[in-house]
């Protein structure tokens, strides 16, 4: 599988300890949810950030998507809490 640029925001970013990283998940990682499961194994920070999947939102190549969305040939995937602007 190709490299994916991961971007994180708000408390997801804080728990992981970085706002951005490049990852190369195995071919078995098909959806954003699979990716989150796989990333949660990388470090304690990732595990903490992804603890409660119901509180996570995602964007694939800057389009907001549900977590069960296939990754396809995504270049940038963002994981973040529900938005609170305005």
């Amino acid at each position, binding site marked *: 599988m190709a490299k994916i640029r991961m971007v994180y925001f708000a408390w997801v970013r804080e728990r992981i300890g970085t706002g951005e990283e490049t990852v190369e998940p195995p071919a078995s990682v098909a959806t954003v949810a699979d990716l989150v499961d796989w990333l949660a194994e990388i470090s304690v920070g990732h595990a903490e950030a992804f603890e409660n999947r119901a509180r996570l939102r995602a964007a694939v190549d800057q389009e907001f998507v549900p977590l069960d969305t296939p990754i396809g040939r995504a270049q940038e995937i963002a994981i973040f809490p529900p938005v609170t602007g*305005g």
Partner: protein
Amino acid sequence: MIHISVQQSTIDIAAEMTRAEAAGAGAVATFTGLVRADDGVGTLELEHYPGATEAALLKVAEGAVERWGLSAAIIVHRVGPMQPGERIVFVAATAAHRGAALEACAYLIDRLKTDAPFWKRETRGVTASWVEARDVDHAAAERWDRPEA
């Protein structure tokens, strides 16, 4: 006319109103969100997703222009640190008649609240915490999807 801005600098209402009025139509409705000065927040900090934010705001504005035939839609949102009393967000809708302007203005702020990637962090005394999303915001945004809306 659509104008979108995600900015560090303060929001200049007079300048934005001039922009909204330049379309020559009869009715301008606006909404301004402020950092509340009355509930103990010392600093509010706004984080966003550069690139994706502007695209999301543009989509919200385009939706309003198409649905209400607006002659202008404006969304200005601050990012970075700000103080109580400062403006966080300003939206404006310009239309020939007031009904369209008022409804479109409500749509702009309702959709922005759920569709644009901003995150607020409040500092109260020495404690900083991320603001939780509110269910009521989703209800407000979703009412625009109902057929009777």
